[in-house]
């Protein structure tokens, strides 16, 4: 049952009690009023009647008494009238049958307690010798009772109408009074569901208004708190994400560096393995031939031949050690270059001149008129050129042609060494600069160095902030080029 119905039922209940009381009160009052009126009427009529009877009885006009009695009886509200003597025998009566009979009619005690519709009262007579003792009159109460009933029903009707009016008004008022409560209840539901945005209109300054106000405050506070919390959660989540990303990146970096370290470690052990292998080969010749010379009695010529091998292999060993040192310098990123102003044109000429050639191979230089300078480590650049030219000679068979060319560019010098040897396959362009990489050519090791020459050359050129590359057409020869940045003009 809704609260509104409860209120209305309560009001209806109270109204019924109150209306009931009102009706009762009114009826009681009216009754008293009617009865009092009635009593006065009874008394006054009784007195008049008594007086009249007294007068006629003195004059002994008994016929007149009877006539008055009948007249009296005809008065509205009078049921009957009789006169009795001292022996309680009825002498005169409007009801003729009762004459000369003993009077059994008794007076009503109290008008309120009278259950009959007739109120009976006796009035004493002082009629002298006639012997008449008292007059007894019966008053009709029908009229009063009808009036009272009428009044009761009227009150009841009015009460019922009033009750309905009250209920209707109660319905309206309860609706108005309950409206803010219903709004509050709805809003409380909203709040419970997490919607803090709704506000209730505050219409009054009373407890309901204050409650609405408090509720609005609460909703606003919750709204703020939630937004704040959400913002904090979002912030924290974002921070966590950032931290997480950083962690992921760091982990990736760690993994990457770990991988690199593992790779480096592998490369290092490979390097050590290869180095030991490379060193053992010349050592085999040196030790083996030395022991051979010592143990076997050989002709002088053969001895000299083997001693020369020991010398060559010793030199090869020295060269290998130099190369390994260079490689370790490259890998440590610490070349210790001595930069100076180098006349590259002159250096190219000098390098080419220093190479002793067999008759089968021709070498040609192609230099610009302008003398070119670069800031470089003279010995290292010579080493690079020697290396590339050396390779060209190694791979160029009889009738080979080598062209060393120097070119002037805006901010760099380009040095290229071109041969007409077997050339290099495209997939090997980068590989040849790797450590220990040797071309898969069908030539003997006699002609091959450590497999480090180009790696070292690349390291040297890179340390000069230059570039080194190869272009080749398989079968037609290859062209190695490298650049050197021009000398920086410090005075400008």
């Amino acid at each position: 049952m809704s609260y509104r119905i409860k209120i209305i039922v309560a009001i209806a209940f109270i109204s019924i009690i109150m209306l009931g009381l009102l009706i009762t009160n009114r009826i009681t009052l009216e009754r008293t009023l009617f009865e009092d009126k009635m009593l006065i009427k009874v008394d006054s009529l009784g007195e008049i009647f008594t007086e009249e009877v007294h007068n006629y009885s003195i004059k002994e006009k008994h016929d007149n008494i009877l006539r008055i009695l009948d007249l009296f009886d005809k008065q509205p509200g009078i049921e009957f009238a009789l006169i009795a003597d001292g022996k309680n025998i009825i002498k005169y009566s409007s009801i003729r049958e009762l004459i000369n009979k003993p009077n059994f009619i008794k007076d009503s005690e109290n008008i309120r307690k009278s259950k009959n519709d007739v109120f009976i009262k006796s009035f004493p007579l002082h009629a002298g010798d006639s012997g008449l003792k008292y007059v007894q009159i019966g008053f009709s109460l029908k009229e009063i009772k009808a009036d009272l009933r009428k009044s009761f029903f009227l009150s009841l009707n009015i009460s019922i109408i009033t009750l309905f009016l009250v209920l209707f008004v109660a319905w309206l008022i309860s609706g108005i009074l309950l409206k803010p409560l219903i709004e509050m209840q709805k809003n409380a539901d909203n709040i419970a569901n997490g919607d803090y945005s709704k506000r209730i209109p505050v219409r009054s300054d009373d407890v309901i208004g204050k409650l609405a106000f408090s509720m609005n405050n609460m909703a606003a506070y919750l709204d703020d708190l939630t937004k704040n919390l959400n913002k904090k959660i979002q912030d924290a989540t974002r921070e966590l994400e950032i931290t997480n990303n950083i962690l992921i990146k760091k982990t990736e970096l760690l993994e990457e560096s770990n991988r690199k370290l593992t790779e480096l470690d592998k490369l290092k052990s490979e390097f050590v393995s290869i180095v030991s292998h490379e060193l053992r080969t010349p050592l085999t010749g040196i030790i083996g031939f030395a022991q051979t010379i010592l143990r076997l009695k050989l002709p002088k010529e053969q001895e000299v031949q083997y001693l020369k091998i020991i010398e060559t292999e010793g030199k090869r060993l020295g060269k290998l050690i130099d190369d390994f040192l260079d490689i370790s310098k490259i890998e440590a990123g610490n070349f210790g270059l001595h930069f100076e102003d180098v006349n590259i044109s002159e250096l190219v000429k000098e390098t080419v001149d220093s190479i002793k050639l067999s008759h089968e191979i021709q070498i040609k230089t192609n230099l610009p008129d302008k003398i070119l300078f670069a800031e470089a480590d003279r010995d290292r650049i010579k080493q690079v050129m020697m290396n590339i030219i050396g390779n060209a000679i190694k791979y160029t068979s009889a009738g080979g042609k080598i062209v060393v060319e120097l070119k002037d560019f805006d901010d760099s010098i380009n040095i290229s060494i071109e041969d007409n040897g077997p050339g290099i396959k495209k997939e090997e362009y980068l590989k040849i600069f790797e450590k220990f990489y040797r071309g898969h050519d069908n030539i003997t090791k006699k002609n091959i160095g450590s497999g480090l020459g180009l790696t070292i050359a690349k390291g040297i050129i890179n340390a000069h902030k230059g570039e080194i590359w190869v272009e080749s057409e398989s079968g037609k020869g290859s062209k190695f080029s490298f650049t050197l940045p021009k000398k920086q003009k410090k005075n400008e």
Partner: protein
Amino acid sequence: MNKKILIVDDEVNVVELLKVNLEANKYNVITAYSGEEGLAKVETEHPDLIILDCLMPNIDGWEVCENIKCNSKTKNIPVIFLTAATQREDIERAKKSGSDFFVAKPFDPLDLIRKVKKIIK
């Protein structure tokens, strides 16, 4: 008759070293400077022993050895591996390819002769 020994190595100096020492010990020496040449000479010369270098361009020593051991005509010829690599993997590989003998570079020619004598009496 003198025993025939085939030397396969792309290092000219090593071949010369082995040759002079083996010849001093009355062995008949044949030389090859690549894997291909070595395999061809195994077929034609039927040596009693092969001394084989591991690292050679194109066909390396292990491949040469495998080929020899696969061929029923040549599989019984003992092979001594000459290796600069003393790494365990290389030795394992030599064993796998069918040879139980290997000499690490640098070597004492005297030790090698002793080993050769032991293998081919």
